[in-house]
């Protein structure tokens, strides 16, 4: 009889361990997602102070916008975009969004339900970088403003600072597009 009791006790102990295993994860916070997110890549900065120092920033709407910034405070400062688009990743993992303004476009990415600035692209010569470079300027103006610390690949000149980069796409020595972006 004793052995039977012990066996049953052991089985109950295993069940209890399983229940403990089940509960130790706590809430997954996954909402309706079948797969609870556990380890997503974190590319954004969380400290507002570090966002302003050591990053390339784009001056607009009275703010300095950097790749990796949370979008929450940016859109109210910039006002309504000329157009807006969003697209869902296959399977899920949130919506990528695009806010189109006169002269520039902001691409965002989601992370745990919050949108962050992925890339800011100048679409014409109405916008200038903080150092005064515009689409249509010469590559010499770029290097005069930003120095020689760039990497170049297929006409794309890249300056990196922290998790941000400032790129100039150059064709025939003329800047054709400018973009601020997150880098890993």
């Amino acid at each position, binding site marked *: *009889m*004793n*052995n039977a009791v012990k*066996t049953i006790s*052991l*089985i109950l102990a*295993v*069940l209890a361990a*399983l229940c403990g*295993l*089940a*509960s*130790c*994860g*706590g*809430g*997954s916070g*996954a909402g309706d*997602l*079948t*797969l*609870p*997110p*556990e*380890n*997503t*890549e974190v590319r954004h900065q969380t400290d507002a102070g570090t966002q302003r120092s050591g990053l390339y920033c784009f001056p607009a709407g009275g703010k300095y916008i950097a790749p990796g910034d949370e979008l929450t405070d940016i859109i109210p400062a910039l006002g309504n975009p000329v157009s807006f*688009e969003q*697209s*869902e990743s*296959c*399977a*899920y*993992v949130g919506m*990528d969004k*695009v806010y*189109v303004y006169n002269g520039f*476009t902001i*691409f965002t990415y989601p992370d745990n339900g919050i949108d962050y600035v992925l*890339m800011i*692209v100048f679409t014409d010569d109405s916008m200038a970088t903080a150092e005064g470079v515009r689409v249509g300027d010469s590559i010499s103006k770029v290097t005069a403003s930003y120095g020689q610390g760039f990497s170049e*690949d*297929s006409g*794309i000149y890249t300056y990196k600072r922290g998790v941000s*980069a400032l*790129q100039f*796409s150059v064709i025939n020595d003329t800047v054709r*597009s400018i*973009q601020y*972006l997150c880098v*890993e």
Partner: protein
Amino acid sequence: MNNQTDSKNGTDIAIENGVAGTGANGDGVNETGEEESGGGATGGRAGKRRALRAAAAVCAFLLLSALLLAFAQALVVPKYMSFPYEGGMVREYYGSGYGHSAVFIGDCEFYECVNPLVLWEEYGINSYVRGSSQQLIWHSYYYLLETLRYETPKVVVFNAVEMKIGSVQHEEYTRLTLDGLRLSRYKLEAAKLSLTEGESLLSYVFPILRYHSRWSELNSDDWKYLFRRDPVTFNGYLLMTGVKPRTSEIVRPLTDPSFPDVCWEYLDKIRETCAENGIELLIFKAPTNTWHYPWYDEWDVQLVGYAERYEGVRYVSAITEEDAVGIDWSTDTYDAGDHLNELGAAKVSSWIGRILRDDYGLPDESGDPDLSASWDRTAARYAEELAKKGGPSHAGTDS
């Protein structure tokens, strides 16, 4: 009868082989092992029996524990029988019958752009799409190696878009890609290369370690599909029937013309594996090209150059061949151009099927009665699903 009485803690338990009862005619031993009756040989036998009983009890306990854990694991792992279906497609390959002359390996560009049923109906080509969400290039490599355990296709079609991404973006996609694979060293190698911070390789062997927190979120599907799954694809093709035209004029500029080194490394491995097994490698870019999932001429140039360097390798892009493919972006996409719907997938399949037949000589196997019967069943299920989902289809129905 082989009875004995065991006296422990003052309580007698009589056990015989499979039958419990009070000891009669048995040789007894007390709890110190002293003989109560019989000689030394008998006492030795009793000791052995006790050891055997203990071993049997331990085995029974371990077996029961394993069964309980297996049950709990089967219960908590996601079933993917509703959105996102992508997690349910990978395991279906193992029931596909194998013997495919072409196997497509890639991400959503393949499982929503290539419809093997069209390849069968139009060309008699027996093919399969081994696709998964954001399949990374090393995943594809191990998919290829695993495929070779089951079959050796004449042509492997690899998704060019995987050259873009050289690191894991989200653990969720890795799970969708690897959880459905059978446990093998290929699965573990692929997982090892994909681990994000805090993840353990063991959780790919015992998924309960990853999914135990779903315990509180279990739904009716978790019970309904505890020990079985319904098919969610048609030889790997995920049927999408909605229509949302591509209208955006937003251009996302090229920021990095180079493919990551790791992508070149694994493209080489894929090429070498194909060559070693006498398989032709066709690198293929689907026609999709949007601000969300952009593709650039600079990347085309590099893949064209790669294909030119190696025998048995070819690169084709349905973007540059868009007119020949016949894609109409006002009708052939369900999400504004990121992916194709049934209409678009049929056009791409028809186009690439011609290449596979004419340039690679893949055989028309429609005369094979077993294959035909299998594809007939797939076609019937397809028609049923199409009717259920509604929307236009290449067959002309619009339910």
